[in-house]
């Protein structure tokens, strides 16, 4: 019987520092056959093992059309992710996946797309952005709203020029605060402040959002007030995960297993659940 808990060795090919606490890793499976067979949907995640430390669910952040390697953008916050920060190119990590639901690429065909991301939440949305660029003709207008804590916390800064240059693409930025005497031509404030200059309307539009849960709560509330409905808003949730395959129970919210029924959910799927069940992040 196949063992879904067995990670496959993958080699770190490239390491790129995004910010002081976040790094993008380019990986390939050691076994060329496994790499050749591997593909994923934008929004799906892998379980990443550092042997002896543990496993962590991490979204795949690269172009889904690239079959020769894949990327993870990781914020170093705990045991596994901090250990990852110490590894060099050529090091081996364990990978299994891809798991979970992806963003609704099929439903997005012919529609406008509004992307709202906060912090590391841009990582699971980057495959979507790369897909939208590559298959530009299949989609309507694209608007990307991205918020980070400070300008120094922004991911993929070298790619914004390319994104903004695309036909019918609009990219807006905001930060919570500016550090030092840095020049900042964009907005200051939480991500919802960008709604003031947003062009997207509920009409023929799908919304994809990922970020801290408290941010998503505000984003959702605000969008609903602006006439968007629960069927057109998609959120990607984060929960504790120890298996990724609907076995360990950890990721449950109500009857849903976030690892399998999500992490991407249409808001309508979650709306029926009592708010406490969703357990928005409590920060102490």
């Amino acid at each position, binding site marked *: *019987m*196949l*063992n*879904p*808990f*067995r*990670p496959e*060795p993958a080699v770190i090919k490239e390491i790129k520092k995004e910010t002081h606490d976040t790094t993008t890793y380019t990986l390939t499976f*050691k076994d060329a056959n496994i790499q050749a067979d591997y593909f994923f949907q934008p929004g799906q995640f892998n379980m990443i093992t550092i*042997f*002896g*430390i*543990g*496993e962590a669910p991490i979204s795949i952040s690269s172009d889904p059309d690239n079959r020769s390697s894949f990327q993870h953008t990781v914020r170093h*916050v*705990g045991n596994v*992710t901090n250990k990852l920060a110490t590894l060099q190119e050529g090091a*081996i*990590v*364990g990978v299994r996946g891809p798991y979970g639901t992806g963003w609704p690429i099929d439903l997005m065909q012919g529609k406008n797309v509004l992307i709202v991301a906060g912090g590391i939440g841009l990582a699971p949305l980057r495959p979507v952005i790369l897909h939208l660029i590559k298959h530009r003709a299949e989609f309507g207008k694209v608007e990307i709203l991205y918020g980070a804590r400070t300008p120094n916390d922004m991911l993929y800064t070298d790619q914004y020029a390319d994104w903004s240059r695309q036909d019918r693409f609009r990219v807006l930025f905001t930060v919570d605060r500016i550090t030092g005497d840095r020049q900042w031509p964009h907005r200051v404030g939480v991500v919802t402040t960008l709604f003031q200059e947003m062009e997207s309307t509920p009409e023929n539009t799908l919304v994809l959002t990922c970020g801290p849960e408290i941010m998503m709560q505000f984003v959702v509330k605000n969008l609903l007030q602006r006439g968007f409905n629960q069927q057109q808003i998609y959120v990607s949730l*984060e*929960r*504790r995960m*120890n*298996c990724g*395959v*609907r*076995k*360990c*129970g*950890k990721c*449950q*919210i*109500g*009857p849903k*297993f976030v690892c*399998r029924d999500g992490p991407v959910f249409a808001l309508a799927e979650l709306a029926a659940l*009592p708010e*406490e*069940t969703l*357990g928005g*992040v*409590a*920060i*102490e």
Partner: protein
Amino acid sequence: MAIAKHLGFNERIGIGSLALLPKDHLYDFVDQLMEEFVVVGPVAKGSEFVFSEIRDPEQVRLDYETTILPPKKVLHRPFQTLFSFREDGGITEEERINKRQVLFGVHPCDVHAISILDKAYGSEYPDPYYMAHREQTLIIALNCTQVGKNCFCHSLDTGPSLKEGYDLLLTDLGCSYLVEVGSESGTGIVERTGLALAPRVKMVEKEKRLDNARKKFRKRLLTQGLHELLEENFRHPIWEELIKSCLACGSCTMVCPTCFCYNVVDKIDLSLKSGRRQREWDSCMLLEYAQVALGHNFRRDRDARIKQRIYHKLLYYEPQFGTLGCVGCGRCISACVKKIDITEIIVRMRGE
């Protein structure tokens, strides 16, 4: 299918056949099973009972009401090594070849619980560790003619009698056990142990004894309208009371035959070059269960954790696995030092 010649008439033994196991042959029967299988059955431990590997047939105690832990522990082990690893990513999987085992004397509620675990671990990405144990396991079940003080299986239709999920099913008829055959493997055991076939009328006696047992239940959990009841009472005052009394110790989930949650840890050997990945039972009642990086916790409030257990058992298993998550074994009631009682919670909600 073999012919039972020793009875002097030709009757085929097969699924649905009846046989008799005289009580004074019980130990011989277990002894015969032990030649072929690892036998795990109920044994006394102090004033209580536990499932344990049988070393001496005379240890077996079929007069038990309930065991501290359910027989789940031999299928979904409290600790299970998943694999060993080396620093370079080399992996050696745990051997999953186990000797065939018989779970002996399992009550109907626990058989139902195993069929729920089969769904949880067997569906999509089957769990190879659970499945390896499960595929090697035969179940010789035992209908309940005794009723424990916290049992309420009768109201969930998970006891005191069993309809399916067994290889053999015993019912205490006084001087002997009626043996019902539920599978090909069960047929084989009846043949090899040479049990005498029993006439159909024995079923009448069985039903009489079970009806008698049905009258002894002191607790119940009515399922009619249960979903609506739970959905409407997410903010019932009972939850406030429970936060005050519940210690969030996790005993209730540790003894529950249908709980499947686990945590995973890596253990490093002294060499620091190799180690094992291991899983261990976990409980949604514990604070760390839903904790993630940087101290965020999705169920920090005890209120949320208490609700998770009750709502998972009584509301969410249904969409997940097509069945209620409680089988009415009463263990969580017995295990709770604060006497928190799942049936009482529902009684209170119903305002009875």
